């Protein structure tokens, strides 16, 4: 045992998409405050395996906060209690000895549960495929410095592009809206001169796909921005709305 945190975990267990799930309660002890939340789950899982139980399935990969794969809803908040971090960067020093921690998957009908804490986020890929790109085939580009870009716009585009596609915004929203995700990509490209040519079709196509996937409308509560591990600003939604309405009014 490396540490001295003893915790009670209430974890959502669900065999697959078709089966109903429920909470199971587990005790873990000897948890070090230096562990990440996922390393704490690793400890639980290795114990479950040794005891002959099925370990808790959860998505994770880079474990350094950038791949966007981890997705736990911890004590009622996506990625847990700290602002600006993903679950893999949440460390156990943020929890107290004796605490009970509830862990659920993202809840949204557009993100069906695959197993336990694993959900299907392929809707995001389809939203990008609908228009989240600039149509430039490989080999078509001019010299990079032939297109100077105002630094403030470039910085704002970068800030929007920092979205990791984890889906915390959807999980946080009572309407399960994907507007923060969609608007981040629309904003990034709308802020850059390269993105202007297709701006109108992009906004319309991405919004249409977002609706088709079954994501809800904006709740205007700002929960998405508050829970976003990368601090993506809600201003992007305002920009998306401008882009979308101007595209709608000017469309033929």
């Amino acid at each position, binding site marked *: 045992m*490396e540490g001295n945190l003893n915790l009670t975990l209430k974890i959502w267990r669900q065999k*697959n998409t078709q089966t109903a799930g429920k909470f199971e309660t587990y005790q873990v002890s000897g948890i070090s405050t*230096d*562990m*990440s939340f*996922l*390393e704490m789950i*690793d400890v639980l899982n*290795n114990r*479950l*395996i040794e005891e*002959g139980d*099925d*370990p808790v*399935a959860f998505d994770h*990969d*880079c*474990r*350094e*906060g*950038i*791949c*966007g*794969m981890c997705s736990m809803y911890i004590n009622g908040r996506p990625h847990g209690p700290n602002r*600006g971090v993903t679950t893999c*960067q949440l*460390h156990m*020093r943020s929890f107290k000895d004796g605490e009970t921690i509830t862990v659920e998957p993202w809840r949204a009908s557009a993100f069906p549960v*695959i*197993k336990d804490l*694993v959900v299907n*986020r*392929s809707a*995001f*890929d389809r939203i*990008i*495929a609908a*228009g*989240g*790109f*600039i*149509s*430039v*085939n*490989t*080999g078509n*580009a*001019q010299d*990079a*410095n032939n*297109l*100077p870009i105002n*630094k403030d716009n*470039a910085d704002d585009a*970068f800030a929007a*592009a920092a979205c*990791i*596609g984890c889906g915390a915004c959807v999980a946080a929203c009572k309407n399960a809206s994907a507007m923060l995700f969609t608007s981040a990509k629309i904003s990034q490209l709308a802020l*850059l001169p*390269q993105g202007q040519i297709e701006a109108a079709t992009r906004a319309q196509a991405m919004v249409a796909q977002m609706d088709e996937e079954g994501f809800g409308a904006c709740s205007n509560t700002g929960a998405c921005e508050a829970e976003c591990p990368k601090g993506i600003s809600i201003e992007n939604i305002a920009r998306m709305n401008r882009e979308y309405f101007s595209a709608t009014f000017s469309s033929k």
Partner: protein
Amino acid sequence: MTKIDAKIPDGNLAEKWTKFKSSVPLVNPSNKRSLEIIVVGSGLAGASAAASLAELGYKVKVFCFQDSPRRAHSIAAQGGINAAKNYQNDGDSVYRLFYDTIKGGDYRAREANVHRLAEVSGSIIDQCVAQGVPFAREYGGLLSNRSFGGTQVQRTFYAAGQTGQQLLLGAYSALQRQVGMGNVELFTRHEMLDVVTIDGKARGIIARDSVSGALERHFGHAVLLCTGGYGNVFYLSTNAMGSNVTAAWKAHKKGAFFANPCYTQIHPTCIPVSGDHQSKLTLMSESLRNDGRIWVPKKENDTRKANEIPEEERDYYLERRYPAFGNLVPRDIASRAAKERCDAGFGVGSSKMAVYLDYAAAIIRYGKGEANKHNMHSPTDEEIQSMGKAVVKEKYGNLFDMYKQITGEDPYEVPMRIYPAVHYTMGGLWVDYNLMTTVPGLYALGEANFSDHGANRLGASALMQGLADGYFVIPYTIGAYLAAEIRTPSMSTDSEDFVKAEKAVQDRLETLMNIKGSKPVDYFHKRLGKIMWDECGMARSEKGLKASIKEIQALQKEFWSDVKIPGEINNLNPELEKAGRVADFLELGELMCIDALDRNESCGGHFRLEYQTEDGEALRDDDKYAYVAAWEYEKQSSFKLHKEELKYENIKIAQRSYK
């Protein structure tokens, strides 16, 4: 026996690629529509290749084990991407990037491939900007550059500390555009578990749908493995948890030679291990060495806090040993120097296995610069500190935040503690100039191949190579093969070869599930990792390697008789996936030790204790070892060595010095 022919075009080095492109056979657009290409892996190499090939008109299928192609581990690359643009007017050129890369690789890379890489580097930046990749810019609106290790020019383009993310999202958006147009079919949460060969040519793959557990057969006229490196053989590394060697290893067992497996890169600046629970290590970008200074106390076992140690009692050992490059020496050299200081008893922190990376001087330098900019003639220390910290935050903010998150310490106030960790693997599947392995029709791109970085990769060159291979090399070189395949119709996957391959995969999965032993997969992975880190890591020896080979063979037996895999075969089962990967790592680890034992010299990341200069630098043996070691799989624990002689016609091979 397969013959090893690198197929390097004739002619002067600088003209090879141009001539090749003008003479390589082409496939006309209507034929492209009936040619199918399988791309495994969706990182920089895979996504860029898949998008570019689909744009050309080929029918492409992309497979990735993650839930979205955007999550491939290229996403985590931090510092930047090199390109010989010479925007800074500081003397850069294609030749200099080529030269730096060959020298940085300790004269163990193939000249023709590296020169081509340098030639196409500029086009990568152009392409990425056109896609909307938001690189860092100066106030005039033009692109900004910084320096990386092993170079004396500023040729690194970047997007804060998230360059890999931005480049991958660019390639991913190009890929998704092709998915939307119906030119690419995407298979996420799918893991490739074998290559199917028919009459000696790669004709498809067997993949497992991770959600349903079902095995699938997929045909392709060609198969591209863009499946990254194998650093996770060490258990702890900066790689993602899922990064694995399985695709490359299956290809190896089907006849693809594995080249230079012992060349691994230990990155000097990572957050040190904090305990046994640790599941992965986190990199602190090499870009931090632009401004940070690395030091340890001059006094052995100094227990004072960093801030209590006066300037004259600090040993800036990189600046002392390598004045010409200072803190920006290449990674292999910086890592060994850190290990040397810690082994000698000068390490810091509770484990004593760390050195300081200090930003105090940079904060003051930037603070004073800002004061000048704002015409403040006598700024206070507090003003200098606060302005300096603001500049550092803009350049490296996300890295500093990450450090604080993981360690609980504020790097703006106290120096970071860092230690080397496994980061990248230069070795990989052997490929010829066309990026084709020794199996016809089977290609390897990006980190999965071996060709460009020799025995040590320079910082910011992995992103360059991944995108070069995918955007600008494979679209041309694949024509050399596919032009002869236009009469090959799509093959049914009901053929005997496909059925047999699937059956073998199914049998292996069932064997794993039926072991029903007593130890979880991680138990074996950790033990393998410890053997590899201790004996095939930063320092290797004949004695240690020989013992390790025996230990690994014993561990293989133990694994196959005592691993315990819970859950079901036909459901999402991460432990089963991990078990398959660790089984392959156990075989690869053995080959890495065999390769390290064969190479009786030190070069780049491969440091044999028996072969070093008087001052502890790597001692190469160019007469005997200027070759690529390409290993052929014969049977369990039996590999046959083939040598590709490295000919240096344009660079004079010399002892590598950064002093």
